[in-house]
């Protein structure tokens, strides 16, 4: 079962070197234990562009789709047996990156 772990940031800054080191160590463990599928850190929301092509003409909007105090700073896609395992990984991930983490299951198998 795969879960999306979204890193929720309420600070403006990027990860500090200490946080980066903790994330790297956590990532190594995810790979070693077979949880790793994919992960990435994101540039700040100010770099986002929203595209809406539902009307036949692609409209571009400068900025994120939602202006909010909290934003998505990065994510993991991980393999876990069940939610208990996923929540344990999330707790460790949250500690490593020093931010809140939301866990959501991927749909279907």
């Amino acid at each position, binding site marked *: *079962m795969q*879960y999306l772990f979204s890193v929720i940031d309420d600070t403006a800054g990027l990860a500090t070197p200490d946080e980066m080191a903790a994330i790297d160590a956590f990532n190594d463990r995810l790979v070693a234990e077979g949880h790793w599928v994919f992960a990435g850190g994101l540039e700040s929301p100010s770099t986002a562009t929203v595209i809406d092509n539902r009307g036949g003409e692609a409209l571009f909007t400068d900025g994120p789709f939602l202006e909010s105090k909290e934003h998505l700073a990065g994510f993991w896609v991980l393999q876990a*047996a*069940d*939610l*208990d395992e*996923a*929540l344990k990984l999330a707790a460790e991930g949250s500690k490593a990156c020093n931010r809140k983490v939301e*866990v*959501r*299951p991927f*749909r279907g198998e």
Partner: protein
Amino acid sequence: MTDVREAITRVHYQEWARVVASLTRRFGDLDVAEEAAAEAFATAVERWPADGVPPNPGAWLTTTANRKAIDRIRRESKRDGKQMEARLLYDDDPPEPSGAIGDERLRLIFTCCHPALAMQTRVALTLRMVGGLTVPEIARAFLVPETTMEKRITRAKGKIKAARIPYRVPSAEDLPARISGVLTVLFLVFNEGYLATGPGTDPVRHDLTAEAIRLTRLIRALMPQDGEVAGLLALMLLTEARRTARVSASGELVALGEQDRGAWDAPLIAEGHRLVRERLAARVAPGRYQILAAIAAVHTSARDARDTDWSQVVALYDQLVHLDPSPIIALNRAIAVAELDGPEMALAAVGRLEDTLAGYHAYHAARADLLRRLGRSSQARAAYGKAIELAGNTAEIAYLTRRRDQLGKHLRRASPPSPPRGQPGAAGARIRKGEHNPV
């Protein structure tokens, strides 16, 4: 006919959780299990009056519910493709003996009380899946519309399935925290019954306290070694034992010191005391429920309120504060301190809690009582007013209102003398007891 109906009620009481649990295990789906169990009981209501109660009603219900579940899965697999059929091919594991950690009902309880669910969802789901209460019953219990409760339970079942909340007893390493989560749910159900809120509700909801006790007894039977489970059960029994004495005929709360102790339920008290003694004999550091049960045991050991061993009560609260430094525990400790060291000491302790408890009616009620005992009537009246404003329990509001209105009549009465320190007996004899929150 009445016999059959009684038999069905009894079997529902005893077997519901087992049927839901074994179906959830087999089909891996709470929704399927719940619906099939409900259908099986509906079939029993239909058939047993004519056919008679089967010799093994539990087995009959499980078999019938299994068939209903298979019917539903067949129907859905015709619609959704063949993959679900595969699940029907393997039969369940052998039934596990009850009383063991492997009892399927335990899995069910731990799943319903999973920490990834909101507290109110855990309560609702536990009452539905383990307690067998209907959705309208649960909605009434928590004063929400049925559709709201239905949605809450449906959403929870959806999340358990989609996010794969496991159906198992947690590992030894996680067990203490998870049991404590289960006990929180049961204590919440009990307290909502014991201190029912809402203008139209009875002050004590016996249906909820009884259900909480029943479920705690079940967990106790499944985990007899767990001290906190025993502690919570003892606490509930010793609180429930005072239920009828706690509200007067006119619907007013009767403070602990003024209750008719002869009206307390002696068998429940005896059972509660037995559990407390069992935990004392275990010589393991007690958790918070065990300490709360011990406090309740001290109260219920006194034949007369004046015989209450307040130094013991305060000592137990000291132990509790150490374990759980919450302001509510500190407030209850202060109320006990008033009996030991006098209201002045207690008022100072209560005053320190203002920042955190200003929105809590019991804080103002405790302050009001202490101020009244110190003869500071106008301040007491204001504090009673604040407590009445914030209280939700009708019996408590009636009690506080009478207390406040009595003050009006005895304005500027001389204050009673402060008791000497360290003489609980003398203090108890001289000072009228204020309400002591028993939990």
